[in-house]
């Protein structure tokens, strides 16, 4: 390579460094910008409803009365269903990939699971609305109602669309992320520890539950937060299948809404300033929720990297 003369190098270095610094600055400004813009655009709604917005169940564009409770409830419940399914499933998948499958099989199965993450949200939505929800309504939900109908969770007509299908689809969407982190955590466990357990006659499961999981407990928490962050703001897939109804019901069969689905559905139709402002405030609430989860995940994983000698 050609080497520049001393005079010009300093100039180029300063320019290049400035360009990289400016780009980095854009990130911090954009982040601050998001918070500022959302707060500014929801001022009408904040002034009118105050903190009551968060626990008011009203949502009536005609009487101009808005509250976030049903959307927050739907967001939390669909995310909870997703995590309850995704965490054990991805733990089992990670166990299969790291401990059980022969390396060649493990690689291909790993790719397949990763590929789930590449499928766009809207495709999950199409499949969910036209294929999966009808399947649930015809084959799964009647069965659940028959055997679990006495609980409040399986009441009402089995329509397919609702909290349950939203939660299951969200679980499929976060699965690749959580299982990837868990897989890494599993393979980080020093072989000596595992061999010691095996040497004492422990079975694969005993080694996993008593050694690997304990050694990587913090990393598994990180996987949980990562999945949580993904699920909480997922928009299109949820919008397709959740049913978009501003109501709170304990039944998993009933239609509900999430913050993201409310935004996707109603934003372009909202013409009134207070209506729009309330929708933006919903966005602000979602922003605050994800920021909290992301912040915990970020510092948790960083702390983890320090204590286990990894980077970041």
């Amino acid at each position, binding site marked *: 390579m050609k080497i520049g003369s001393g005079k010009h190098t*300093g100039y180029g270095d300063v320019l290049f460094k400035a360009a990289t610094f400016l780009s980095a600055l854009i990130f911090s400004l*954009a982040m601050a910008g998001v918070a500022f813009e959302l707060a500014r655009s929801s001022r009408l709604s904040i002034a009118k409803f105050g903190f009551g917005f968060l626990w008011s169940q009203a949502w009536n564009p005609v009487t101009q009365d808005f509250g976030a409770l049903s959307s927050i409830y739907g967001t939390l419940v669909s995310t909870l269903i997703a995590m309850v399914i995704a965490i054990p499933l991805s733990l089992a998948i990670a166990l299969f990939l790291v401990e059980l499958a022969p390396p060649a099989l493990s690689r291909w199965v790993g790719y397949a699971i990763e590929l789930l993450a590449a499928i766009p949200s809207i495709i999950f939505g199409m499949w969910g609305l036209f294929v999966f929800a009808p399947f649930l309504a015809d084959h799964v939900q009647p069965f659940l109602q028959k055997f679990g109908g006495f609980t409040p969770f399986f009441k009402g007509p089995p329509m397919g669309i609702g909290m349950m299908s939203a939660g299951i689809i969200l679980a499929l969407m976060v699965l690749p992320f959580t299982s990837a982190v868990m897989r890494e955590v599993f393979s980080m466990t020093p072989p000596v520890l595992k061999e010691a357990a095996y040497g004492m006659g422990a079975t694969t499961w005993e080694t996993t539950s008593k050694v690997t999981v304990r050694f990587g407990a913090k990393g598994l928490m990180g996987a949980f937060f990562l999945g949580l962050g993904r699920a909480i*703001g997922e928009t299109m897939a949820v919008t397709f299948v959740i049913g978009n109804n501003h109501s709170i019901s304990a039944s998993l069969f009933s239609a509900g809404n999430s913050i993201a689905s409310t935004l996707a559905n109603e934003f372009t139709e909202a013409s009134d300033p207070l209506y729009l402002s309330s929708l933006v405030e919903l966005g602000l609430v979602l922003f605050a929720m994800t920021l909290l989860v992301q912040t915990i995940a970020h510092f948790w994983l960083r702390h983890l990297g320090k204590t286990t000698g990894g980077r970041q």
Partner: protein
Amino acid sequence: MRTRSRARRVALDYAVRAASTVSALIGIFFLCWILVVVIHRGSAALNWDFFTKLPAPPGAEGGGLANAILGTLIMTAIAGAIGVPIGVLTGVYLSEYGRGGTFASLVRFTVNVMMGLPSIITGLFVYTMLVVTLGHFSGWAGAVSLVFIIMPIVAGTTEDMLRMVPDSMRESALALGAPSWRTTLGIVFRGAKVGLITGVLLAIARATGETAPLLFTSLNSPYWPGNLNHPTGNLTVTIFSYAMSPYPDWQQMAWGASLLITVGVLSMTILTRLALVRKG
């Protein structure tokens, strides 16, 4: 450890092994289910008109989504042209200049947060920033909202990939008298080439499949994307509105568009995977 009979412990172990194998199969099963449905229903909608004609009203014969295909390509290209350089330069800053500094850790934090930010929030942000200010939905606003998808992914992978280049290579270049910007662009980039391209392709693939950021920015349009100051047609928002419509022929078109998006995004993803495998 409680004492249990060996038979019971082994039986439990087999049960867990079986459950974990079944879990892996469940993951693959859903992947295949989704792909088969999209290919099966989508291929019925694809024909020459689909790629060359403008949308037809419901009930009318023929018609295609040529404008939406073009709109998606244009907006993604513009977003890439803006987002990739910013992302790469930020990655360079984090890896080469600000390794341990306070500002760098702040930026690293915002990159991470932005990567996990729901895409509908970026759409909302660009709406309040551009659409409200300018007074109309536009293709430009759509492209800008996609920039916020591309930027953090590229920045994150760039930092990771550059960090994998050993410091001895930097030191050799500097010892030969190369200025640090040439060291970065000529030596470190060359070492991390495959990884950098992978990050860029992944980011573009993600942006191509995004819907939520476009909902309130570019909106959608049944016309050719001639002027980006107007609402601009795109595949993903078209899928959303056609799927929610009561017309079977529009829903059919939505499946066609779904197949196109899925094939595009997955082939880009697989390509990057192959590149990484060949390198490793």
